[in-house]
């Protein structure tokens, strides 16, 4: 009987996020087109992707954030090592 209640309670708990999701309103995209007239270079490219395909724009933003973050980390790491601030495994003290 105890096992039954454990399984039952597990199923109930699993369904909670789905209920929350169903109760939520659907998200709205920002209905906007960027004026490309005075833009050039990288600004123009970003705005063009933004206007034409929001999924592509979101993908580019996400990938770019990861790549830029890693590149800067690599460079900063070199400088920190030069300053003697290299890190390795530490002991955890409260």
């Amino acid at each position, binding site marked *: 009987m105890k096992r039954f209640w*454990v399984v039952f309670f597990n199923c109930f708990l699993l369904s909670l996020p789905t209920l929350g999701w169903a109760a939520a309103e659907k998200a709205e995209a920002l209905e906007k087109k*960027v004026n490309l007239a005075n833009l050039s270079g990288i600004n123009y490219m970003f705005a063009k992707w933004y206007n034409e395909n*929001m999924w592509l724009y979101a*993908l580019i933003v996400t990938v770019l*954030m990861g790549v*830029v973050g890693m590149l800067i980390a690599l460079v900063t790491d070199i400088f920190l090592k030069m300053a003697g601030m290299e890190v390795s495994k530490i002991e*955890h003290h409260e």
Partner: protein
Amino acid sequence: MFDIFNVYLPIAEMQFNALILVAIGFSVGVLGGFFGVGGAWVVTPALNIFGFPMAYAIGTDLAHIFGKSIVATAKHRKMGNVDMKLGLLSIVGSVVGVEIGAQNVMWLTRLGIAGPIVRYTYMFLLFGLGIYMLYDFLTKDKRAAAQAAKAAEAARAGMALPVRKTWDLPPMIHFPASGITISFWTVTFVFLFTGYLSGFLGVGGGFIRMPALIYLIGCPTAIAVGTDLFSVLFSGAYGCFTYGVKGRVEIIAAILMLIGASIGAQIGVTAVKYIRGYGIRLLFAIMIILAGASVALKQFNLTTAAAWMVMSAALGMCVVIMVQLWQGVQKERAEKAGH
């Protein structure tokens, strides 16, 4: 004078000062790396205060948080501060929670009440958590003494200490890196709830997840910091993408903030090596109370005072962290030289 640093933001279609964006990024980078949080509780109000359009503030913030948390997580992993198993479990809860939260805030925006509700929720969480953590810090010695007295009494009576009653609904999971065994449901709901807040408030969810990992799950502070950043990475990535699809990320602003944040995060993470767990908790408590005070000022239309409060608090805490780091490095060098 600082107008020469103005850049054009193509998506928001406005001029904005690049120095402000890099400075905000740097300060939250240091705080984020050190406390294991995204730092949106500083970024979103700061962007709002400096006149950045709110329609893009949350999405832009989540985008830069994603990039920054890659940097910080990698470094924390080197230091053995990331519980990968616990972190991976966070993905499902966080992603579902972020989506529900994001949809809720859009609905509130349509009703025209998103601003005050988000700010009141912010205030409640920031003050509540800050005061609790401060109380925890101030009473730690008293609690340790009481626990030691109980143990001594039990030893004298030849009995074992009574086991603390915990929520133990199966399945139970063991996390060797953190040294804890806990119900799957506790872990799932902690991450679901913090994911929801992440989407709702436009934050990485870390400022509530880090204390939750310590107080509800039972992780050591440094592991809570590292594992939290690992979770922020996923909620940030999903938040970045989902807000991107909704057209709410200003990409140039996000890149500028990321430049500052990536440098700052490296400094913040390195500082964790030199400060003990309770020291991190104390600084965290002070920081989120000050952040809560700035949101309260904003609610009373004291925008300029709120701007000074949030930026001074963030910069002040950055200075404290960097000074602690510097002192730690000097001490370590002196010890090495002594040997």
